[in-house]
């Protein structure tokens, strides 16, 4: 196995205990040096509402969502949006290098019972162009529930200003199965303003889901 980013051979062997352990074996896809370039968020000091780093009390954004009557998503993210992560996203989503989809699979774990993991889908037009769904790729190692669909929008979120993002209209619809668990974890690649995820939550509510909705993303 070689590192997905620098193509150097990976030196971390699973070891005997790793092989004999009952837990599923999860090997890193990136070498330590490449992985160390990404800035992991210290979960002890994040905003309880959105997972923003170094904000131990509720941040401005989250207070605004609260003021609008939203129940906060208790969002958590694994990484900060630093330059190496921007490069990674550019290569993966921008250029469409699907091979990188498992780069963080060993880190992106969501544990818990009685919950469904619902990824934020990409638009049909984007899927047709890329040939893959970036969020499904990143979280493909988890058991996912594909309950959301997204209608095509004229301008992608990534090309909008903050103000424009917040004004985006609802474009999700949810189709829930007969039996749903008490909790849904929404999964996305990037949390910027939270607009997308709160829309997704609203779509779940509109479809009649009454349980708890929280969210996770690769990057905050």
């Amino acid at each position, binding site marked *: 196995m070689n590192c997905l980013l620098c193509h150097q051979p990976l030196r971390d062997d699973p070891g005997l205990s790793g092989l004999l352990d009952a837990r599923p074996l999860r090997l890193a896809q990136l070498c330590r040096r490449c992985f160390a370039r990404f800035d992991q968020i210290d979960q002890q000091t994040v905003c309880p509402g959105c997972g923003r780093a170094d904000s131990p009390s509720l941040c401005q954004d989250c207070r605004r969502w609260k003021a609008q009557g939203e129940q906060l998503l208790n969002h958590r993210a694994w990484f900060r949006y630093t330059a190496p992560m921007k490069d990674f996203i550019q*290569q993966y989503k921008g*250029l*469409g*290098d*699907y*091979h990188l989809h498992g780069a963080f699979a060993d880190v992106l774990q969501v544990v818990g019972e009685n919950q469904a993991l619902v990824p934020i889908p990409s638009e049909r037009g984007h*899927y*047709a162009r*890329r*040939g*893959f*769904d970036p969020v*499904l*790729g990143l979280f493909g190692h988890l058991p996912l529930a594909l309950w959301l669909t997204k209608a095509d929008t004229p301008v992608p979120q990534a090309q909008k200003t903050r103000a424009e993002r917040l004004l985006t209209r609802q474009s999700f619809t949810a189709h829930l199965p007969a039996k749903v668990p008490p909790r849904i974890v929404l999964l996305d690649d990037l949390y910027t303003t939270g607009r997308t995820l709160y829309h997704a939550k609203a779509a779940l509510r509109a479809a009649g889901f009454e349980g708890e909705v929280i969210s996770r993303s690769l990057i905050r």
Partner: protein
Amino acid sequence: MIPSGMQLIDEEVADAGIAASSLAQAEVVFGIVDGVCQRCGQRTRHQLPDGRTYCRACIGLGRVTSTTRLFRFPSGPGEGGKLTWAGSLTPAQNAAAQAAVASVSAGRDHLLWAVTGAGKTEMLFPLIAHELAEHHRVAVATPRIDVVLELAPRLQAAFAETPVAVQYGGAPWPVAPAPLVVGTTHQLLRYYQHFDLVIVDEVDAFPYSQTPMLAAAVAKANRGPTVFLSATPPRALKQAARAGTIGVSFLVRRFHGFPLPVPHLLVAALKGVPKRAPKTVLHLLSQLTGRQCMLFVPRIDWLLPLAQALSQAGYTVQTVHAEDPERVLKVQQFRDGVVAVLLTTTILERGVTIPHCAVLVLAADDRQFSTSGLIQMAGRAGRSQASPDDPVWFVGGHITLNMLAARHEITMMNRRTP
């Protein structure tokens, strides 16, 4: 405008705003046929969830998938051009250049084997001038952007009345068709059967040597012979030259006429490196007598501990590596003489000229150091007329074949009559 001789994918054609009437003149092929990328010629097996295959090798220029259309625009003869350079070549440079002209005229590939610091760029002028006069199209391809940026103005100055197109990742494009193109080797992927001569600089350097795609890019972009330039040609080229399948000319003396410094091979206990500097190294550094020293190490994580050890021993030290954002600045500081020792990875093995500079390769027995790499590093020493005999030391835990081969090749070059 028709981007003559280029091969562009759907997105590039759309970005460049090429008119439908121009598109109609292009030959259209699908991006991947039988598992081979039609742009870069590499085999690919990478699949997208929607069933298409895509090429990872050339993805940096925009993704090619099995449904991508690749537009190949027709090429034609060059616009011509002439040399306006007023300088002159040494007799040795001239002989090597004329041999290359003879090979190219005969339609044969050619290896220009010139030692480090020989003045290769000027030697290309007669060859390029000869080709432009015949209305041929010429590309000069080099592995790195820094070299493109250094080379382009020199070529433009030498061919002042000729349009020169400069191409590298991030450069504005599309460029107007020009008879002379200077660019990174990757950019040749955007051409198809367009050039009558491609000159490949530093054939043995990363990434050309490790990336088969780039050799394929040269072959695809070219419809004539190829001239390879190197101080340390790869084995395949040396064998072809010896067998006579390609032409070869040597330039064995530096422009100042002195022989290359021959490396001294030293064995030292490397225990405790990089946290401690070996005694041998400290002893060698004490013999610098007013020279600066480039100290090469095999690994990035050696830089900081070793720098600490050396500054404790009283040396002013600076470190550089490939991802160092201050690389250019630090090298400039070293050039200015602010620091005595420059600790570096192999990133500086080429293209750097410091007068009065000794070279020390620590752990020269490391697998990281190839024969050509060692020759290049040794080639950093003795580059100025004032100090042609700067010392070169290879210090290893033991002596490897690569170290011996590097010393042998340097000695043989010195022995060859100019």
